[in-house]
């Protein structure tokens, strides 16, 4: 919960002007993107119900309190909501000025993970245990700083009117800025987050108007990098097995194929309307591992059926659709790039997360935005929502 502190640090930017802007005549109510806000809240609340259903029987996790995870998920949502308000209040432009500090802080945190302060949770060495039952996954926040940092570099000359597109030098700089934290995260290794970050970089480059050569170059490098990762055996055996199980789900149903098999059975057995919340036998029987986090979508599939699971996809669709509008309608490239980075992030993470439960993507430990249980992820996505809102709210005030 303290994870977002880095972003709620105040004291930068013209606080007064922000304040007045926020309460200017009709502006906030009129300019806020209500569909995104509504969808994000709805997703978080649905997530709370699903997390509750998945964890109420898991006494080994919930310390005997069936509402433990429900409460904490709602708390995370509340904190996330507050962070969103803070972000809108500060404004994405104000945050641009804070990028060097935010970037430095987040790189420091992920470096901390590599020290003895870091902890391995569920096979990923990506956590810092703070104590008191709290832990932090800094790679979630790195996603935001990469977006903000690259947007700042790439948009600076263009928004100033010097150039129509970012030049090669600027692109190179921005890629270097992204590469540092990505390489650190790769060392953890938190492969899922690396994948998301690479996609974010791709989205950012696309939206920046950088030359096609950079875009295809990045795609090529990504492919080469994947081969290198494979060949250099950076992957752990469990990660290789996940891919093998994806290629052939019947392989060893009690072992590595178990997760995907059980996930698919849970979703498939839901049918049109599902079994009803708390009545799914796959969920109640705890046949799907990590069901409150990475596999939370299976709860929706089994207990809410095609209707409920489809609703989640529709709500995510609304968020992404509106985000695309925001990206297209803002007048400054900076806002466009930030919005595009967030779109790439949300879209890929949602596709990978839901796709792996449906058996069309290999298993990777990524949370479903808003829905999965997990503080760091929840805070990060709400800050992202705040950034989107801020871009929309500040749109007419062109630089």
């Amino acid at each position, binding site marked *: 919960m303290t994870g977002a502190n880095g972003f709620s640090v105040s004291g930068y930017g013209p606080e007064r002007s922000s304040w007045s802007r926020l309460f200017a005549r009709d502006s906030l109510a009129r300019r806020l993107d209500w569909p995104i806000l509504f969808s994000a809240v709805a997703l978080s609340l649905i997530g709370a119900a699903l997390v509750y259903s998945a964890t109420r029987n898991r006494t080994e996790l919930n310390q005997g309190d069936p509402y433990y995870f429900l409460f904490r998920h709602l708390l995370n949502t509340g904190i996330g909501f507050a962070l969103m308000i803070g972000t809108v209040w500060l404004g994405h432009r104000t945050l641009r000025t804070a990028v060097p500090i935010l970037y430095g802080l987040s790189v420091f945190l992920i470096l901390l993970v590599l020290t003895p302060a870091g902890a391995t949770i569920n096979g990923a060495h990506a956590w810092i245990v703070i104590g008191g039952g709290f832990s932090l996954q800094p790679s979630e926040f790195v996603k935001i700083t990469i977006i903000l940092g690259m947007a700042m570099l790439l948009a600076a000359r263009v928004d100033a009117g010097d150039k129509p597109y970012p030049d090669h030098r600027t692109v190179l700089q921005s890629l270097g800025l992204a590469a540092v934290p990505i390489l650190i995260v790769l060392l953890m290794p938190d492969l899922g987050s690396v994948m998301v970050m690479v996609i974010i970089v791709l989205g950012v480059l696309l*939206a920046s108007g950088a030359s096609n050569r950079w875009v295809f170059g990045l795609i090529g490098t990504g492919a080469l990098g994947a081969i290198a990762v494979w060949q250099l055996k950076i992957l752990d055996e469990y990660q290789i097995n996940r891919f093998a199980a994806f290629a052939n789900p019947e392989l060893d149903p009690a072992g590595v194929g178990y997760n995907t098999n059980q996930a698919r059975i849970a979703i*498939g*057995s839901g049918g049109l309307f599902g079994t009803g919340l708390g009545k799914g*036998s*796959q969920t109640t029987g705890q046949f799907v591992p990590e069901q409150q986090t990475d596999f939370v979508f299976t709860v929706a599939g089994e207990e809410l059926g095609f209707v409920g*699971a489809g609703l989640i996809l529709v709500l995510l669709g609304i968020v992404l659709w509106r985000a695309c509008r925001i990206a297209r*309608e803002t*007048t400054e490239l900076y806002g466009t790039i930030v919005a595009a980075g967030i779109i790439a992030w949300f*879209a890929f993470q949602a596709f990978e997360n839901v796709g792996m439960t449906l058996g069309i993507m290999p298993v990777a430990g990524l949370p479903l935005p808003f829905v999965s249980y997990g503080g760091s992820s929840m805070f990060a996505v709400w800050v992202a929502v705040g950034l989107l809102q801020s871009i929309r709210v500040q749109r007419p005030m062109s630089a």
Partner: protein
Amino acid sequence: MTNIPETGRTPRVQIRLVVIQILVLSLLGTLGGRLWYLQIRNGDEYAKEASGNHVQQVVSPAVRGSILDARGVPIADNETRLVVSASRTDLLKMDDDGKAVLTKLAGVLGLKAKDVIDKVRLCDAKTPQPCWNGSPYQPIPITDEATPKQALQIRERAEDFPGITAEPQAVRRYASPAKANTAQVLGYLSPVTDDEITKAKDTDSPYLRSDQVGRSGLERQYDKELRGKAGVTRYEVDNLGRVIGQAKSDEAQPGANVVTSIDSRVQRVAEYELNEAMKVARTEYDKNTSENYKADSGAVVVMESKTGRVVAMASNPSYDPNAWVGGISGKDYARLTGKGSNYPLLNRAIQGQSAPGSIFKVIPTAAAVNAGYSFDGPYQCASSYSIGGQVFKNFESKGYGPISLGRALEVSCDTVFYSLSHEEWKRDGGIKPKKNAKNWFYKTAHQFGLGKETGIDLPNEVTGRVPDRQWKQDYWKANKDAWCKYGKKGGSYAQQIAYENCLEGNRMRAGDSVNYSIGQGDTLVTPIQMATIYGAISNGGTLYEPTVGKAVVSADGRSVRQIEPKSNGKLPMSRKTRDEIDGALEGVATRGTAAWRFGGWPQDKIPMHAKTGTAEVYGKQTTSWFATYTEEYSVVMTISQGGTGSGASGPAVRKIYNALYGVSEEGKIDKRKALLPTPQKKLPKIEADGSIDAPKVGVYPPKAEKKAVEEGQALTGADPAATVPANNTGNNRDTRRRAARPRKRRRTLT
């Protein structure tokens, strides 16, 4: 506000943003499509898989019901034994396929290691017994006769015996009260096969892997009733097998008891006397074949004439049905089914068919009357009858002059029936039948229920055969190719016969109809058919469907389903003809062919009716038939290669009647000694706790007599019985036979 803003926005960025938007939406569309595919299109499949995922079944087998005799004496029940079994699945996990464990186990049990290892291999075409013919997933019983000490050794050192269990189990027992083993009527059990499990899966009585299934006799006929319903408790479990859900449970329902009409005491007499008669027959010299009679098999049926209920049914050679319990040994299996075994598993009372000889004559008698011939005649009883140079002799070539049909029955005059049948054959058009041929003699046989099953409640009954014109045609069609190939004019006797058959085997010749009229030639009947017919003559003409089962009573005695006598129709004869034949058959017993066997019989108190038969079989010695009835019972006995009807079977049948009615050899009736002067009407009482008050079963033959018999046997030295001993390996089977049974045994079915 979707217009392109005027500042800082280039078409390239705008186009790329649209591309991103399309890409994002198509990703979500992909997810939605996949979700529909899993949940709507294949939803049922996954739902089934999910329910299989988390339901665990715990099965408790049902106790098999008992088979009781008419008075409640159990003839098949269960006893608790210590069964040591091996799990093949566990054994195969070991490096040496469990050989070391089995060898160690053999040491504890005092068996040979090889025998134990052989017992757990699976049966196939190449594997001789012993082998396991049940499901490979089911624990395979090694022995069901472990001592408590052996069981303790195995259980206390469980780590030394992985995959081996020693547990008390209810095991089938064929109690053989008073040594009446009733083997072929009871049948036997063997483990259920995979095929049967698959087939019965969706029926209302599915099998368990551990089930035993009735394979013949009553065990098979009433298998569904006896088996009961296994208890199944369904637990919903989580991924670690912990019970989380509501447990749904169906309690085991013990199998129902089948009350039969068999009286164990009469059964014992029937089995014993049949065996004795066959032993005696083997000491008789047959002058036709110049050697002693072989008496290789025989059967006897005692039936209630007014209901068709079977009181006793014996088939010889016999066997000990306990040989099947706990898996049959290789030796026993060979003894029961091998070529040299003479097939003791056959129930010759319903599965043995042979020419009936003269006991058939009641049928042509009725046929002649139906065809319009007068009962009184007179008809010439010549010593022989010739057709176109072929001479058909009377039995022992004796003539009696002009006599009635009744007298012809009494003295068993063949020539009277020859001429009647021949005349009818000519009337029907002879070798070329008329279109509207009456076929009286054949039609009547069918109306007597011959040529088809009686419908007795025992499996695999055979039909016998009425060799009518249709049959001749069918038989010729099926065999003419072989006949025509083998047949040769002027060849050996057999070749000549084949040649003739090839030419006109489809036609009924005069000789065929003549042979048929006295139950010879191609005519075949079973003892149960003849018992039904003679019972019908006794009861006034009703052909009953014979039954062994009398009632199915639930384990707690509350629900009783009576098996009522069922009529298969009436004999095709008028009341008058019935009375005339009845009179003639009484004459057979008092002054005819059977009179010498019923010397001193209290005919005034218990009117006896009989008909003897001596059937000739090509290449074999004569078959002895003896069909009798009183008001209450019909008794039919046959001995293959046993000699004449009255000679071989007569004394045994007389002794059965003696026992039924308490008649001494001198003809005095002692009601106290009578086993069953009138048929058992009441059903035995089964208490709510499953216990049954069973009366005592006396020893037969009575002790003094038995002693003498045994001494006689000791002198001959060899095993005198035709019975095939099920097991004389001497190791363990004998332990299960109980020397004496408690007077009133309370049995509890749990």
